[in-house]
């Protein structure tokens, strides 16, 4: 396992990775609360981006409905906590299966009935929209008027119930991001990862060399959905409020895929780099605009759009492959 993790990784890449990790571990002791929140957002997008990337970047299945899995995870764990006082760590045991069931239904229908490409993407949107409208009418978890977790000022962080200060959330999401990275790295250097790439590249050819493409595409959807639902739990307990209009909205799904696309679809560092770039730049811009007294809704999203345009036109494979070349680190497959 450990050997597989580091096999073929150039020393320079290891050094860069270690440096980044050290900086992230030390960050809460250096930065102020605002920056810590920004870092939490960055890592949140890095994590979700990594999870989405399994489906699109590895197995080539474009999902534009990942907000569905975030929402299912968020609502499940939050409902268990609010209604029964059950810790989110136990809530996971329900949240993951529910999100996986959602993904499995979509995957099964799409792959059995050969709904591919753009049609598949639209199908994923459709299911997220279903959930949005459904949860609007689901009064047990607040319906369209929102679902709220109890908030208080905590002197000590309660990790078991995920109630506490930003620093706890920071280390939690950092751990999740590192774990997701490790999982993706291991997957990519194993049989399943190779099979996914083959399916992404050419599904018919993949079938011709004996790959049960239905099964492996299902694995990708299930894994991606499960991982994304964990981000949902984090989201619920960090923000403490959930509105179907916001959680399941198509623009959430699009936000989730920006980081890996800008960073580099199918790469391991892409989602992380993309999240840093996107959130970092948008916060900087926000600060500048705020400094000039301009506070208009929509500016940030226009900026996202322009970033996306720039990257997709100028660096179609994302920023990371380009950075990696400049740094002299070549990720084996991108």
């Amino acid at each position, binding site marked *: 396992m450990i050997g597989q993790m580091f096999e073929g990784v150039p020393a320079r890449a290891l050094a860069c990775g270690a440096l980044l990790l050290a900086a992230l571990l030390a960050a809460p002791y250096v930065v102020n609360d605002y920056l810590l929140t920004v870092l939490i957002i960055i890592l949140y997008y890095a994590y979700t981006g990594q999870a989405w990337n399994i489906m699109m970047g590895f197995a080539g299945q*474009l999902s534009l409905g990942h907000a569905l899995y975030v929402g299912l995870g968020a609502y499940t764990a939050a409902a268990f906590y609010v209604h029964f006082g059950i810790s989110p760590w136990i809530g996971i045991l329900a949240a993951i299966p529910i999100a996986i069931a959602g993904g499995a239904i979509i995957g099964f229908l799409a792959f059995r009935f050969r709904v591919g490409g753009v049609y598949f993407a639209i199908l994923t949107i459709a299911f997220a929209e279903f959930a949005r409208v459904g949860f609007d009418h689901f009064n047990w978890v607040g319906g369209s008027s929102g679902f709220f977790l109890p908030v208080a000022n905590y002197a000590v962080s309660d990790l078991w119930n995920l109630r506490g200060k930003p620093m706890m959330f920071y280390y939690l999401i950092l751990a999740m991001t590192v774990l997701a990275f490790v999982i993706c790295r291991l997957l990519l250097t194993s049989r399943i990862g190779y099979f996914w790439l083959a399916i992404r590249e050419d599904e018919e050819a993949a079938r011709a060399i004996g790959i049960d493409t239905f099964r492996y595409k299902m694995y990708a959807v299930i894994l991606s959905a499960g991982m994304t639902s964990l981000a949902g739990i984090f989201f619920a307990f960090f923000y403490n409020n959930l509105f179907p209009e916001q959680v399941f909205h198509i623009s959430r799904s699009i936000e989730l895929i920006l980081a890996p696309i800008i960073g580099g679809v199918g790469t391991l560092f892409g989602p992380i780099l993309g999240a840093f770039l996107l959130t970092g730049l948008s916060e900087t811009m926000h600060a500048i605009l705020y400094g000039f007294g301009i506070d208009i809704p929509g500016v940030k999203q226009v900026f996202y759009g322009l970033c996306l345009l720039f990257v997709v036109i100028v660096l179609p494979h994302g920023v990371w492959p380009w950075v990696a070349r400049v740094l002299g680190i070549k990720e084996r497959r991108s």
Partner: protein
Amino acid sequence: MPAEIYLNVAVSGILTGLVYGLMALGLSVIFGVIRIVNFAHGEMMTIGMYIAIAIFSAFKLDPLVMMVPIAAVLFVFGYALQASLINPFINRPEHSQFILLVAVALVMVNGLLILFGPDAKNVQTTYAFDSFLIGPLIVDATKVYAGGAAVLVSAALFAFFRFSHLGQAIRACADNYVGALVVGLDVRRLYALTFGIGAACVGAAGAMLVLIIDVTPALGPAYTLLAFIIVITGGLGSMPGALLGGILIGFTEAMAGLLFSPSAKSMFAFGLLVLVLLFRPQGIMGKRAI
């Protein structure tokens, strides 16, 4: 409930559906010829709607009167978009094209948000509250005008593709890309024209729809999805299919709004989409191609 209510709602749904159909026609033309899924379609329509509102509030000019100039503006816009941004993406992978248009859509929605703010806007025409009485039916005048205009524009479009040289050239291009290149058609220009035509359709549809519904910037993505649903239901690339799909969705939405709750109507549209994708992926009028 008396039967007349159902009938009224059905007719009004079908009239709205005609406008939906025209909007979807634009998407269908673009896909049929360029094989690009315009993920910024609803956003282009909201641009048309806001132009109509801006003209109306400045000069009190009726959106239906201004439909042609609005369509012309959208045509230029669509032409420029295809010629500058999308043409270079013709041979890129599908997801790459998709993301390009998602980005364009993101800029459009939020550009409108910056320009016009998040509040709903509409036009108050002099006939806004008029209605026609046809036997037991009471139909809003706005919907009749809008639906009628949609039929006119669609008919013009059918005629264009059937009878004009340019329309035939575009169809040739759609049927056989390589063949079109071989006989010396300027495919990229035809693509730009096609995207312009698609944009003009959706712009005209916007000018009509603004009579019926209030517009907010957030409407864009919702109508992009609606256009997808219609086009996939009717058959991607089929022009009659788009119109038929529009009517079907307009009808479904209206009935769902009446029988259940208005907020659930998109669920029915999506339900229809899922069923079509699974059991008749080529759509009602489409030929099996995927």
